[in-house]
């Protein structure tokens, strides 16, 4: 089961984090086999929001939502279940100053593929 762990925190709290700790954890979680992908993000001032309305692209400065807690990075992990995902998330260093949102991955490709196969297959016997 895949989960995306989104790392949130206020800018000031996150500024206090030591990058070396984060990288050390990243190496550890990669070695454990739990981590599928992970990145840290540039500060929120560098964010650009893109929308398409009536076929027109609109570009604005800043993040989509104005919140005190900003998205600072992510880990895509593989875990047996939510309990294991929570254990992994609890060890992500910024969990101590910010918060980690753990979101299960929706198997969108599998769902679409299964629906397509069902449509293409001949009518069932019963």
């Amino acid at each position, binding site marked *: *089961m895949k989960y995306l762990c989104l790392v949130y925190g206020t800018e000031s709290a996150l500024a206090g984090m030591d990058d070396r700790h984060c990288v050390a954890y990243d190496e550890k979680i990669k070695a454990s086999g739990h981590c599928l992908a992970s990145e840290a993000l540039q500060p929120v001032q560098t964010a650009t929001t893109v929308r398409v309305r009536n076929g027109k692209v609109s570009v604005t400065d800043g993040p989509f939502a104005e919140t005190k807690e900003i998205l600072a990075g992510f880990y895509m992990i593989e875990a*047996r*279940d*939510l*309990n294991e995902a*929570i254990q992994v998330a609890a060890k992500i260093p910024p969990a101590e100053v910010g918060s980690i949102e*753990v979101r*299960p991955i*929706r198997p969108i490709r599998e769902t679409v593929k*299964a629906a397509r*196969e069902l449509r293409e*297959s001949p009518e*069932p016997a*019963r």
Partner: protein
Amino acid sequence: MIGAMDSPRADDARKAVDAAYRAESRRVFATLVRLLGDFDVAEEALHDAFRAALEQWPVEGVPANPRAWLVSTGRFKAIDGIRRQSRFDSVEDFETFAEEIPAEEAEREEIEDDRLRLIFTCCHPALAPDAQVALTLREVCGLRTEEIAHAFLTPAPTLAQRIVRAKGKIKDAKIPYEVPEASQRAERLEGVLRTIYLVFNEGYSASSGEALTRADLSLEAIRLGRLLVELLPEPEAMGLLALMLLQESRRAARATAAGDLIVLEEQDRALWKRDLIVEGIARVEEALASRRFGPYTLQAAIAAVHAEAASPQATDWNEIVGLYDVLLGLDPSPVVELNRAVAVGMRDGPAAGLRLIDVILARGDLAGYHLAHAARADLCRRLGRGKEARASYEKALALSQQEPERRFLRRRLAETPA
């Protein structure tokens, strides 16, 4: 076959189905969730199993082990249904799924574990507290959605939605159906106890509205507490059970027939239920003896000291203050501090209690808590400081939501000359 259509036998069989439903349906359900991996599929399988029992037991006789029969029938029906629905399952998938039921001995332990699994899953901290409560009452206690909605003064569709959402999260976020491993058990047990106590309190002192108590919920919480102690005899689980029993023992004494609140001091102690007190005290002593007890056990121990006293004057206030001291050390909170201050007021006189309460109120922690102002008012009244007492009763009244409590405060106001 002798007397297959014999009516006394059919009647007995129907009674056996009813009895099995009352005694076993939640156990069977808990096992089916493990075997089938899904709450809704298990629920349907449970109903199919009982429907089959109603048809087959009158004809074929009541099986030697009704529970095992219901589990295997429920599982068979569910597998059959799944096989008919999906043509994509490989034969191997199906065979793994349809693995034989383990030997009876192993199964017995598994079934007890299944009920614990069910409790821990329904009380998973990733579910919102109100969803935990609803799910526990629905799945562990087997209450109907309408019953739960009624008890919580919530519209039934809202409550049903809450349950559907919680089950959706269990499935989509993959909350595992397991008893947490030893390293996490204490923390997770705390969550289970909190949920059970929430149910109890909703039944004991309704958070709003006219009804002072909704006894059924409290009894359901006690039943849950007993089940938990039976399945997992941890000291704090015993402590919570004891606390609920001791509070419940005073139910008949804590309100007048008209629903007016009677404070502990003024309760007719002859109305306290002795059997609940005896059981509660036994549980507290057991929990205390473990030396691994926590806040629930200490609160129960305090309730036990009250329960043992023949009158308010005969209460061992020194013991109560001492227990509050230990409780504060373990689980500091302004509300516990307030209760300790009241106990000090009983032990050392109202002036001593008032000094402590004023310190707490000055910190601002409990400024919005009606019981802090009511306690202050009471101590002022005892000291003959009528004007101050009235001001504090007024503050408490402005903050209280619960009608019987408001009536009590108005009565006190009327009795207190300025």
